[in-house]
């Protein structure tokens, strides 16, 4: 009975769409309501797919940037350590490098 109801519903939908397409055939300028309805749901699912694709990329990007920042900090600390041990006076950070370090923070 359920299967019959399901196929009846499918047939009603099909007949309705045929009627609309017959009354309002798609033209170059205008599309019939059924076509528009289908296109609307198509762009909705396309948006959801793209959004689902974007999210992991954005979080991966954040994670890599924080890893870079941590490693950069460790490296700079280690270089200062080296300076102390070897009494080698490396050139201090230029203004530009200082600004950039601040930016990275």
């Amino acid at each position, binding site marked *: 009975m*359920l299967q019959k*109801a*399901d196929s009846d*519903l*499918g047939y*009603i*939908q099909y007949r*309705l*769409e045929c*009627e*609309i397409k017959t*009354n*309002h055939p798609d033209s170059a*300028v*205008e*599309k*019939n*309501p*059924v076509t*528009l*309805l289908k*296109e*609307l749901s198509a*762009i909705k699912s*396309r*948006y959801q797919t*793209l959004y689902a*694709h*974007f999210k992991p*990329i*954005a979080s*991966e*990007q954040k994670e*890599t*940037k924080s*890893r*870079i920042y941590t*490693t*950069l900090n*460790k*490296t700079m600390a*280690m*270089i200062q*350590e*080296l300076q102390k*041990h070897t009494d080698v006076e490396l050139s201090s950070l230029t203004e530009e490098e200082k600004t950039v370090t601040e930016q990275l923070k």
Partner: protein
Amino acid sequence: TSELERLCCHVNEKIGNIKKTLSLRKLGQEPTLKTVLNKIGDEIIIVNELLNKLELEIQYQEQTNSSLKELCHSLEEDYKDVEHLN
């Protein structure tokens, strides 16, 4: 019950689509609604173009991701060298 619920959702969705399509049935006749229809058509074109841009932007993001990973890797190599020096 879950099977029955799934069936109910399926049937309700079909009934909902039929209701939507029924409401569209007269749409083409009333001129005012015809303009609404055309407006929706234009909007769909605009949104599709935006989605194309978004798709390109996401591809660009993936490239940026791989260069960030390369940078991270070479930085970690540098750190190992400095650590070794130390």
